[in-house]
């Protein structure tokens, strides 16, 4: 009898201690946890997306974003200026003179399809009918690629629209580089003409005002 009580009391003590060790209070989600030598994470050098304090000439201090804007007029290496302005004239000029510099092959169209799936599909829909999930939540859906107006849209205008945005659509230049924009356009053409594009007669009368050669990043 005594043995049984002993075993029970022993089990109670052991169980109690086990629970005490394993039941930790829930940690604060806003705290990263205990740190030792925090400089391993928080280096003395300034991190890109942080804030730093700068002294002004008059002795006051300002807290500003660490990554500063580049000096006005700075251009990245390999950058080609886009010569068409963000207005009606630029839009129509792009339609007239801007053409796809990339070869139209299966690899490029396939890449365009992948890019379309990442950057366009949620508004324009998988088939390009303007029936994407986000598109249906906008005040109005984006126009269908197969509508009369868009079937007649020259590729230069498409490029211009992706670069600057148009109407409800914003600029996607920060997400897609020039080559990628052309690849997306090639895929849109495939959506418009699933059985292959009709051969267009080249407009020989138009002389390009500015010759644009899209130069992708060297890989």
């Amino acid at each position, binding site marked *: 009898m005594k043995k049984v009580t*002993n075993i029970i009391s*022993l089990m*109670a*003590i*052991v169980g*109690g*201690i*086990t*629970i*005490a*060790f394993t*039941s930790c*209070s829930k*940690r604060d*989600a*806003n*705290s*990263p*946890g*205990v*740190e*030792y*030598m925090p400089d*391993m*994470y928080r*280096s003395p*050098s300034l991190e890109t*997306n942080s*804030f730093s304090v700068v002294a002004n000439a008059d002795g006051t201090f300002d807290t500003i*974003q660490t990554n500063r804007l580049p000096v006005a007029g700075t251009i990245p290496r390999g950058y080609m200026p886009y010569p068409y302005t963000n*207005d*009606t004239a630029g839009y129509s000029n792009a339609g007239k003179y801007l053409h796809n510099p990339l070869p139209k092959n299966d690899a490029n169209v396939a890449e365009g399809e992948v890019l379309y*799936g*990442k*950057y366009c*599909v*949620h*508004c324009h829909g998988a088939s390009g009918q303007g029936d994407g*999930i*986000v598109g249906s*939540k*906008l*005040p*109005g*859906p*984006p*126009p269908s690629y197969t*509508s*009369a*107006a868009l079937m007649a849209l020259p590729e230069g205008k498409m490029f211009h629209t992706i670069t600057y*945005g148009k*109407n*409800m*659509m*914003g*600029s*996607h230049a*920060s*997400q897609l580089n020039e080559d990628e924009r052309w690849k997306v356009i090639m895929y849109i053409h495939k959506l418009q003409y699933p059985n292959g594009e009709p051969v267009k007669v080249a407009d020989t009368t138009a002389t390009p005002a500015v010759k644009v050669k899209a130069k992708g990043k060297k890989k």
Partner: protein
Amino acid sequence: MDTTNNKQRKQISAVFSFLFLSIIFSIQPLSAQDGAKLFKQNCAVCHTITSQKLVGPGLAGVAARVPNDAWLMKWIKNNQEVLKSGDAYAKKILAESNGMQMTVFADLKDEELKALVTYIKNPPKEVAPMPAAGAGAAAPVEKTVNPLAILLGVIAFLVILVAILRGLSHSLKNIKREKEGLPEQAKLTAWAELKVWMGNHKRTMVLIILYIVGGFLAASWDGMMGIGVYQGYNPSQPIAFSHKIHAGDNAINCQYCHSGVERSKTAGIPAVNVCMNCHKGISKGPITGTTEIAKIYDAAGWDPEKGAYTKPQKPIKWVKVHNLQDFVFFSHQQHVKVGKQDCATCHGDLTKMTTATQMQPLTMKWCVDCHRKTEVPGMKDNPYYESLHKKLSEKFKNLPKDEQVITVAKMGGIECGKCHY
């Protein structure tokens, strides 16, 4: 016979009346409902039916502003022609919208235009506001009981139980002694009794003490291993952005916002212009309504009333969740573009998370474990790796079958200098 004839006649007349009715309905002019549908399809991208400016001007009271309905229909169908004709009012509105021209809708039919104009002139009454936007947020709060409270309750219960049993046992013993004619025994204190018990059970006591000491050591070892490991870090952000709504419900690809992931070391936090690509049009969310999206407008300098970026811009102070120390090199491009790793492998299923949580420990052991068992997909077919793959498969061909897999580690992926230099 007569009845069957009657039946047939009835059927025939029914068919005819149906045909007749369908013809009547099909030649009916398009109703206001069609106007609403046409408006949503063609106009709503740029115009609201209220006075709020979107891309083009709001259309409330437009019928009173334009010369007449016929002009409005002509304008909608082909505004370029109206402009070319030198119409004074057309020139005026072109100047008002800074020379931005409206899309031409040459394929709209006359009755469609009529339906549109009817709809624009008689806009529907303000739709009743959606059931309180906070309804989703105010879901019944789950009552969670603190496990510590349960533990304390159990302990308190046991203490009371032990006290009662001790008292009971003491009085029973005394009754027994009384029957045997022995004198009554004084009641010992709990501590004195425990000391007696401990004296009688030395071996058990040693075990208990060992267990307690071991437990403390194990717990402190565990705690020390967690120092500097941010796993589970889930900070609240300045804007209540929900990954679940964006990547889950709306199925927006991760790379739409984190577009640097295939091109750069860092996946990148999207600049506010990426938010505005959709939120220019969507100003109300399903959970927080307009309050959180207004913060985007504030950061972007967007004035929703005027529909223009006129206010000063302010950076959003997002809180960084995943942070690798400066002494380790990590590239997203390498892992996602070449290694074809899914975002969820390291970041968890964000389509179900509201704020991003650090799901993985991001310790060196975690990196090395993965490098030891992961094969670089597509390595066999990638011409860049052709010679390396040949060389490595030659080198490991004498190993047992399951060790022949060319993992990242076998390619040198756990060399110190790969990540620390």
